[in-house]
């Protein structure tokens, strides 16, 4: 048995599925962020796998570095927003933040 592209794609697809599940079912805003991190990692793994097995060259790794940069800045901004929400509502459950409804 040889480890090929399909094995990496399988790992990445399952990781994406778990991330999507986390984003859809969590009420805690930090929990939703954890799901977003899982999805970003799945996408980055796909980029590197396709570059290694199909495309060649280096562009897949370059894309992955940009994904890591964007994930880091996204996490910093989102956690600052979560802190402010907690200060105002004393809760970060996403279903209680209904000030903009109606």
């Amino acid at each position, binding site marked *: 048995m040889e*480890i*090929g592209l399909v094995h990496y794609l399988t790992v990445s697809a399952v990781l*994406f599925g778990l991330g999507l599940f986390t984003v859809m079912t969590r009420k*805690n805003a930090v929990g939703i962020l954890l799901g977003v991190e899982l999805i970003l990692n799945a996408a980055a793994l796909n980029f590197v796998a396709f570059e*290694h*097995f199909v495309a060649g060259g280096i*562009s897949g790794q370059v894309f992955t570095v940009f994904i890591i940069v964007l994930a880091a800045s996204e996490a910093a*901004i989102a956690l600052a927003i979560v802190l402010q929400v*907690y200060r105002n509502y004393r809760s970060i459950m996403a279903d209680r933040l209904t000030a903009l409804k109606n």
Partner: protein
Amino acid sequence: MPPLSVVAFTLLAALTLGSAGVVAFSKNIIHSALALLGTFLGIAGLYITLSADFLAATQVLVYVGGTLTLILFAVMLTSRIEDMKVSNPQTGVGAAFGLIAVALLVLGKVATETTWPSEVKPAVPDTAKLGHAFLGEYLLPFEIGSVVLLAAMIGSVVLARRSLKRAWEKG
């Protein structure tokens, strides 16, 4: 005895997906956040098996050293200790399973029916090529990425501080 690459891939994939399962299903937000560590380390190992060792080092430094610490700070600052047992409630599990089943079916169909021109290459490190790409072909996106990081840093500091008004700012 299977070859070493197969063993390594299997162990790393199990670490990644097992920790991701804990992230997705744990009732305690602290356990979810800590399990993300295993996922990040597993992905870093998979990068090494794909001969992307610079990315593996970056993954450990940025995700484990930076992002995970930030997330743990956010968890500690926002969950009250007494309701830790129910800190991570779930809702809409059935709908989520349906959507994920559809998404994985589509992904699996595309991945198995496309004939990728795939070949198995030996793992050779190519960090030097990555450096040349960043300082040559991808110089402008690289610099824009730095500016994005700076903007995100300033933005999060401005967002997270308490709004103190000085005497001359009132009224």
